[in-house]
């Protein structure tokens, strides 16, 4: 566990972290500028307490602390500094992403593989790895469906040496969330078995069409796996089936996990702390670029993973129509959607028709995916104000006036003058709008497209 004590972790301002550092450290690490005043302030307040806690050098010896409750406000009572940290992280992430439009897999199928072995009861993440995993999994699922409205998720658990089907592959976020809602049914026990669980996930994706992605996301808290056979055989068949496996490890890097991810074209990451765990997970929300998929498939891949799909656009029944039974739940309802091929009535779209199997979507569902295909170019941080050019006094998005003063020291990727410029329309935006436009709106107000 000691590898956890690296810089990233110390930056997360929980009380226990601060007690790791001597008082001098606190002053010298003010390089980021904004954490300084707050840390100093806290230090005064905690002086007496910190002494008593000196002996307690490791996180897992600390009491239950929630870092998000101890940090937060600076003396002005705002969340500025932690928000800025978060924004800087987001900006860096976006800048790393390729700017040009790349092909992405829009129809996704994902199996979420949860480690439910005894090691998940470890308390190095608060309250336990298991509880945190469930909490993040819920957030992940909500966000994932929001960005991949045509996708489907299944849930498989690994515990007591077996793979265990927890939730069937479905396109309805509520069904997936319900599958992992009851934590008592998921109580961690025994050893995990990567091979058994991956085999189970693989078998549930065998029948899927080739134009959709097949992905497995493993949240793995253990350092061992207890397999009935050779896991490399399983790996080979996953490669053959073009299944992309990503692993978020909570403990440490394992050779086999790294291999699985590398060979199937997935991502591997070891979570350093709570925040990093969430980052790793949410990096997997946007649809994967297809070029990686074909690379994983190898040189012999003749199938360009593109296909023509037949889809039905249903007729929506108004609330005033006479009630009838739906085919999905057999409940009497007025509203619903009629499958255009067999005219069965389903409650919700997108779905596969329960009767004829036609994929039923409504046009807004298709539209919800378009922003992955036509992303907004990321804005450039304006480093200095050129008075000859910069006539705009306020943000082009929300009209808030830009700060007049130049911030003394800002972290990498942030503009000292608080301006971010669109490379297309050359308008300036404030940092709030920058984040909002790229993460939510997906449309530049200046360009209008």
């Amino acid at each position, binding site marked *: 566990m000691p590898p956890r004590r690296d810089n990233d972790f110390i930056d997360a301002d929980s009380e226990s972290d601060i007690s790791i550092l001597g008082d001098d450290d606190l002053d010298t690490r003010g390089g980021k500028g904004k954490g300084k005043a707050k840390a100093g302030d806290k230090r005064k307040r905690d002086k007496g307490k910190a002494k008593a806690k000196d002996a307690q050098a490791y996180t897992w010896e600390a009491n239950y602390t929630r870092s998000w409750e101890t940090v937060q406000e600076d003396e002005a009572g705002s969340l500025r500094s932690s928000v800025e940290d978060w924004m800087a992280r987001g900006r860096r992430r976006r800048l790393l992403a390729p700017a040009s439009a790349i092909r992405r*897999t829009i129809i996704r199928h994902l199996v979420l593989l949860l480690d439910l072995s005894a090691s998940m009861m470890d308390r190095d993440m608060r309250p336990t790895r298991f509880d945190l995993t469930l909490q993040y999994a819920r957030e992940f699922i909500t966000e994932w469906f929001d960005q991949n409205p045509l996708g489907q998720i299944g849930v498989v658990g690994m515990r007591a040496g077996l793979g265990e089907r927890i939730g069937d592959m479905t396109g309805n976020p509520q069904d997936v969330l319900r599958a992992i809602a009851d934590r008592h049914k998921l109580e961690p026990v025994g050893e995990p078995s990567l091979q058994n669980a991956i085999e189970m996930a693989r078998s549930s994706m065998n029948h899927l069409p080739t134009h959709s992605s097949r992905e497995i996301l493993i949240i793995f808290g253990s350092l061992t796996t207890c397999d009935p056979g050779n896991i490399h055989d399983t790996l080979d068949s996953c490669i053959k089936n073009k299944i992309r496996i990503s692993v978020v490890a909570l403990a440490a890097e394992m050779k086999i996990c790294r291999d699985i991810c590398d060979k199937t074209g997935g991502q591997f990451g070891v979570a350093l702390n709570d925040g990093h765990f969430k980052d790793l997970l949410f990096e997997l929300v946007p649809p994967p670029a297809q070029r990686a998929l074909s690379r994983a498939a190898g040189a012999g891949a003749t199938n360009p993973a593109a296909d*023509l799909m037949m889809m039905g656009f249903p007729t929506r029944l108004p609330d005033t129509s006479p009630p009838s039974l*739906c085919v999905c739940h057999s409940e009497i309802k007025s509203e619903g959607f009629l499958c255009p091929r067999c*005219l069965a009535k389903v409650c919700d779209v997108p779905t596969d028709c329960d009767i004829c199997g*036609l994929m039923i979507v409504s046009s807004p569902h298709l539209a919800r995916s378009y922003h992955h295909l036509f992303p907004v170019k990321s804005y450039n941080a304006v480093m200095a104000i050129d008075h000859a050019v910069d006539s705009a006094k306020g943000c082009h998005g929300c009209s808030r006036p830009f700060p007049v003063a130049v911030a003394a020291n800002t972290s990498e990727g942030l503009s000292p003058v608080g301006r971010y410029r669109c490379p297309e329309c050359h308008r300036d935006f404030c940092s709030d709008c920058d984040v909002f436009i790229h993460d939510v709106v997906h449309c530049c107000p200046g360009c209008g497209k």
Partner: protein
Amino acid sequence: MDNLRGSHLSLVIDMSPMQWHLSGEGPPTNAYPLTLDAFLSQLLAFLNSHVASKDENTLAVFGAFPGRSVMLYSSTDPAPNQQNINANSFPPFELVDSNIIRRISEEMEDLGEPEEEAPCALVGALTKALCHINRITLATSTTVNNPSGGPNSTNLPDPRILILSVSPDLSTSYIPIMNSIFSAQKLKVTIDVCQIYGSDTVFLQQAAHLTGGSYIFLDRRDALLQYLIMAFLSPPSIRKILSVPTQDKIDFRAACFCHKSIVDIGFVCSVCLSIFCQPVPVCSTCRTKFPFKTLQRLNASRPMPPSSNSNSARPRTDTPQLRTISSSELALSSGPMNGMTTTAPVGGLAGGSIVNKREPSTNGKIHEPPEAR
């Protein structure tokens, strides 16, 4: 329902000079003309009633001019100094009225006399309104602990956007408008639409439907103020009681990219999600070639028998009700369907099972991987 805090209204006005000119023309073509001046005076009366109905109400006004969008007024930003305040006017009204009129005339003068009118920047105005709401939402949520913020200030209560549109749909703005709708959903913003002149706009109908707002097509333009006050003055939380008109006939079927006709079973490119009304070998949008096997398979499992091929290749464009009947006749040719659309609660199941027997060849075909055979 929050009684302590006011509601926020962002107004987006479509200021296309061309459309307003048409709207102001007289009876032979236009039974109820409405000029821009008349519109503005009724609009200001509406805005004044919004400001007057609660002290805490906030207001922002955005104008969509040809080729650009501007914020005309915002009650959260300090307004520029007023030189000549009329002693007989109520200052808050005067502030709103004079600012909006001044900004509109400034912008109109800036427009000059272009040879060809650029399309109205409705998308720009809409996204700006969203950015503005996002900003004031952020501002209220970060000052939660401020005593002035009130007990429940984590969210701006009932933010809403009212779009007053006179222009027809612009097909290039489909994706940005849909993106704006989805972000409005995320921010829990209600979008109301009043189409004052011209034809129905499908995009804005969808915007209102997907965000839980109401869409009103103005038949009697002379009654604009009446409509505005009856339908759009109350915040969304109160509308449940007032039963404001919503539209029910909204249609979420898609138009194919090749003929722009409405399809109910379409063929979609998995790369760019273009929609076609028949299987095509190459996607016309992204130039992706589709596997030959897929084409064979799709052609084989087309919903209509080959004899009625012409029928399916030319999708029906009539009303949804008529369409439902006609396609049910095609698919089933008799009895049970009528039962389904009118009475029998088991209709859905019965209709489905009959199709199951009749067309066993199509069942589950779509999701078989081609190389599985």
